[in-house]
Structure formats: C-alpha cells, structure tokens
C-alpha cells in the first residue's frame, strides 16, 4: 500500500463520520471568526435556537473593516456601518462565550496573524475561517481553508464540515533563493506557473530546500496565497522551526501535553512512497523578484520584464489581457520598472508580520518616500506593531515619511477608509490585484515587502537589488 501524504494523515485524523459515497464529516479543531463574514451566521443560529457547539475552539477578532488611524484608540469608529458590524461581533463573542480580542486589545490584528501569534494554530489541526486566506495556517502543517458564511454557521453549530477529500499536489522549490528574492516571490512565481485555476481541487504541499530554508513568517506568506493558485489549502510539513515558533505561545500545550503533542507532530510529513496527483517543481535559484502587471494574481513577471502584449497569450486570456491592460492603464512593451506609482501599501495577512517590516526597514533606512507618493505601513497585529516599535523600525518608517498605522486588513481589501482613489496605482504587499480590490478603479501591483519599499523610495516599480 502506498504511503500517506501529510494531507492524508491530517484528513484521516479528523474524519468523524463517513458516508457510502465518500462524503465525510470533518471535525474542526479551530474556528477563527471575524466581523464581516459572521453576523449572518450568528443570526442564523439565533433564529434556529441553536448554540455554539465548541466555544473554546472558536476565536474571534475584528480585522476587515476596522480603521487603522491612530485616533482609533479613542474607541470611535466613525463609519456607522463598520461600527455596527464590529459591535455585532462584540455582542456575539460575549453572548456565545467565544475567545475574543476586541479592537482595544493589544493582541487584536488580522485573524491569520493573531491565530499563530497566540498559539491557537498548531501542527496537525484542522483550521477554518470565513476568509479565503485561512490557507496561511497551513505553514504549521495544519489543514486550513476558507469557508463561506453558511459553513461558518455550520461549524459554529456542529464543529464539523461536510467535505469530500481533495487531491494531493506537491509543489517543490529546490535549491537556494538568490539574494533579494523572498517567500512572496516564490508564491507569486508558483501562481505564474500554475495559473489561478491550477490548484483547483487540490491541497498543495510546498516542500524542497528553498521552503525548508524559509522562516515561519515566510512559510505563512507562501501558504497564504495557495488560494490565489486555486487551492483551498496549502501545507508545509512541520519541523524544528515550527516547533520553536509554537513553543511557549499563550495557547500552545505545555509540559507533558507538549511532549505528547510533539510525539504526534513528528509523524506529520509525507511518506516517501506517498501518491501525488500532480507535481510541480521550480528551481529556487531561477526565481526572480516579481511583480504583477494585470488584474489576476497569475499575471506575474520578473521586474526586469516588460508589460506583455495581449497577442502573446492564447484563448480567452487574449481578451482578459486586453481588458487588464486597459484597466491598469498600461501599454504593452513598457518596462515594468518604469511604471510610476501613486501609493504604497505594506501590510495584510500575506506580508504584515515582523519579518516583513524588517525587510522594509532595511530598504528605506535613511531614505525618503518619493515626492507625491502616499505610503502606508499597517502592521498585522498590535503585537507586531509593538515589536516594530521596540526594534526601532517604526522610527525608520516615520523618518522616511511612511504613515505608521494600527493593525487591520486595511487597504488589502479597502473595506475601511484606507482606499485608492479611481485611477491611483499602488505597489502593494497584499494578495489580490482584482479590479477595484483596493478601491473603486484603483490599480494594484503585487510584490514583496522589499520591492514595495523600493518602489516607495523611487516612485516607480523597482528591482530592490538595484537600490543601495
């Protein structure tokens, strides 16, 4: 019999019931909840007179719509709809007895940054959240994926999901990355190869030397964007780095429980003879710093390239590329590193962790944000913000002319006042460059934190390796 993949092992450990047709009742170990995709689910529970099945496994934090300006500490959310939504979460967390980090809590932040930070996310778990970037937690060897609001209600009521197993896909990044190339470049480069549909129906396991060499922060960045490659979940097998990161966190097991957990966690890897339905291999040393040029995350090119001609594509992509260039206000043939920008956004569940901010500080130290560029750094959590201040990073950002904000999702999806104006162009460390994603008619180029920092300094898309 063939061995098992990491995904197979986690899946098998969580099947609470199985129907004849292979449909499973999958048990959920951690349910993360935020203010935007949950109110209708809690309302559904109330209407049906149901309760939360496992409030101790349910963690709530507002992040999507919260303001990130410093006046937030006064406790005022000016936008009435945002305030009502956050107050609904306050009330639901209290009424149903959930673990809760309100806006006023220093530990508040983006749900996918708070979960790992507080030790809620552990290897071998199943983790869900009403947010597609739940894939982030896969960096710990946890099976983690996004769900819709109906499924949020389902997990609240039953702590389970009705699921069919996905297929296994291996994405191997061999060798070493070149200097200036980061986890973000890996994950964008993979999407550039697979396309946004390539991972559909699969759970991806990322492996290989370049992945093993990444920090936990970098691994979270890689898994975070599994969804942009079409896969609901991305995984990385846990190792010593994972265990070191988890150990001592507020909700990680302690003492004898830690030892018992480690005994299982050390079995969480794909067996050598496991079956893979699809395998993709990229050479780490061939990955360049990349940026997106269009309105799909698969529109990825090295920064040294030029804006492509729509005619260079095939099928439906020709029309899509024409439309994308029109939306983005770009001409085919323009060198990518000559594209001028109006705004820079550094943050999000993709790149809002301390390591990302260190990268930015390295690039902008002693430099200034270019004239006419609005640049914003939004830490992923209150604790990331506190640490950046302790390390002196915040001073560097402010001296360079960045706005240094409070934690939240912010301009990644522009639900709060942090938005692009129509036609504005942004160098962004977020995860989606869809039409209107960062504001009505806003234009987004995705890239790594170092690349976004370089663009802030020069005022145009820039190869971070050319800056001194």
């Amino acid at each position, binding site marked *: 019999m063939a061995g098992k993949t990491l995904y197979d092992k986690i899946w098998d450990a969580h099947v609470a019931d199985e129907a004849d047709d292979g449909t499973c009742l999958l048990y959920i170990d951690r349910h993360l909840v935020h203010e935007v995709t949950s109110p209708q689910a809690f309302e559904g529970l109330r209407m049906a007179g149901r309760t939360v099945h496992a409030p101790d496994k349910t963690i709530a934090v507002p992040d999507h719509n919260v303001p990130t300006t410093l006046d937030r500490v006064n406790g005022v959310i000016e936008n009435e709809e945002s305030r009502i939504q956050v107050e609904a979460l306050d009330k639901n967390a209290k009424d149903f007895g959930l673990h809760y980090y309100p806006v006023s809590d220093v530990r508040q932040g983006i749900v996918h940054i708070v979960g790992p930070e507080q030790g809620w996310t552990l290897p071998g778990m199943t983790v869900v959240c009403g947010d597609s970037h739940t894939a982030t937690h896969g960096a710990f060897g946890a099976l983690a994926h*996004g769900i819709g609001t109906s499924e949020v209600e389902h997990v609240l009521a039953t702590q389970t999901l009705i699921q069919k197993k996905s297929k296994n896909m291996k994405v191997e990044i061999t060798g070493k990355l070149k200097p200036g190339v980061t986890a973000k470049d890996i994950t964008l480069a993979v999407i550039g190869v697979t396309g946004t549909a390539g991972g559909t129906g699969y759970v991806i396991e990322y492996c290989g030397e370049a992945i093993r060499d990444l920090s936990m922060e970098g691994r979270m960045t890689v898994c975070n964007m599994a969804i942009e490659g079409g896969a609901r979940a991305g995984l990385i097998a846990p190792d010593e780095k994972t265990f070191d990161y988890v150990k001592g966190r507020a909700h990680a097991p302690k003492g004898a429980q830690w030892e018992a957990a480690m005994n299982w966690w050390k079995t969480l890897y794909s067996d050598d003879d496991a079956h893979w339905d699809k395998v993709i291999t990229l050479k780490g040393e061939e990955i360049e710093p990349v940026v997106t040029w269009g309105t799909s995350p698969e529109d990825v090119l090295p920064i040294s390239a030029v804006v492509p001609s729509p005619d260079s594509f095939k099928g439906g992509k020709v029309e899509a590329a024409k439309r994308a260039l029109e939306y983005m206000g770009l001409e085919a043939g323009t060198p990518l590193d000559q594209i001028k920008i109006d705004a820079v956004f550094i943050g999000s569940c993709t790149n809002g962790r301390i390591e990302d901010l260190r990268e930015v500080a390295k690039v902008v130290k002693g430099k200034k944000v270019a004239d006419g560029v609005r640049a914003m750094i939004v830490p992923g959590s209150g604790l990331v913000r506190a640490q950046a201040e302790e390390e002196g990073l915040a001073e560097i950002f402010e001296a360079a002319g960045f706005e240094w904000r409070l934690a939240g999702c912010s301009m990644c999806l522009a639900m709060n006042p942090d938005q692009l104006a129509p036609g504005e162009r942004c160098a962004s460390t977020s995860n989606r460059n869809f039409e209107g994603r960062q504001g009505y008619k806003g234009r987004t180029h995705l890239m790594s934190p170092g690349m976004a920092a370089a663009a802030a300094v020069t005022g145009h898309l820039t190869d971070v390796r050319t800056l001194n």
Partner: protein
Amino acid sequence: MEKLTKLRSVAAPLMEDAIDTDVIFPARFLLLLERDGLGRYAFNERRGGNEPFVLDQPPYDKAQILVTGETFGTGSSREQAVWALADLGIRCVIARSFGEIFHANCFKNGVLPIRLQGEEMARMEKAARAGEEVEVDLPSQTIRVGDTAIAFEIEANRKRALMAGLDEIGAILSDDAEALAAYEERRARETPWLVLAPEQFGQIKSEEDAA
C-alpha cells in the same frame, strides 16, 4: 433553502474568464448585515456604464441561468457573491471552472453550479447569445437546449441537498450526533492538548490576559 429541481429560462451570457468575487460583489458592500436584497449591489462596477450590463437587458433580466468562462467566483470567500446572484434570480451558473469556495457556497443557497467544457460549452454559449430557452433538469442531470441534451456531473449528496432544500445543520445534529460525540470523546483521550480548555493551561480568557 429553496428547493431546486427544474429550471427553464434564457441563459445570460457573461463570456469572460476569471470573474472574481470582488467583481461580483465589491468589498465596500460587505458592511451590510443583510443576506437578502443584495442583488442591487451585484456587479456594481460593471453596471451604470454606457453599455447596459447583460443582466439588466431583456430578455436576460429574467434569466435564471448564467453562462460564463473559466474560474468564475475565484477569490474571496464572501458568500454575498452567491446571495446577490440568487437575489437577481440566478439559480444555475454554467462555467468552464469555478473558484472552489464560491462553488461550495452555491450549494448552500439553492444555486446549481455546472462545469462544462469544449463543444458542450460552445453550444451553451451559442444558446445564451441567441436568447434560446434552456432547460436545466437536476433529477436527470441534463441540460436541454433545442434538440441537444447535455449531461452534467454533480455529487450525489449535493444533488439530494439541492432537491430537498435540506437544512444540513439540522440533519447533522439529529443524524450524526452519536458519531460526533464518539469522535470528540476519542480525540479527548488521544490528543488531549487539542481539546483542553485554555483555562486548564492556566490561561485567562478575557482581554485582561497579559500580552
């Protein structure tokens, strides 16, 4: 959930690839707490231009079926994308492929997503553009247009749920209660670190908890 068995209507052609959920339902409308009446915000950025949006033009304003390209509904998990489509009267989306979370969300809201490829998809596109009447028959898993019958795939449990308008949560709480309790009991024994309440680690649960 409203039951779904058979639909008969024109099919609206939206022949573009990679229509993401931000296009279907822009993020700024996610501030609304409702799940009903969201159709008016659907495709907001595509409507109100010089060209009327396909779902606003007769006969497609009455369409219950949408025909579209690759990776429809890719992106965010927002279920508002499905709620808004359903509010516009769309009960079936026929695409080359779907974003996975959108695909799952459809089944929770009485909307049938169908994947078609090649000539079958070309036939659907032609029918949609010509305003032909299309019949979608879920029990027999068949689309009929003119003299053509096209078979489609759907998982048995999802088909049952759509046809019955099933309340899955109620079904699980009644039918799987024993299996669930047994599983939780076993996990509590085998992996106690997962189920120990944090209080048992000596943690404090509220915001007074030290950072």
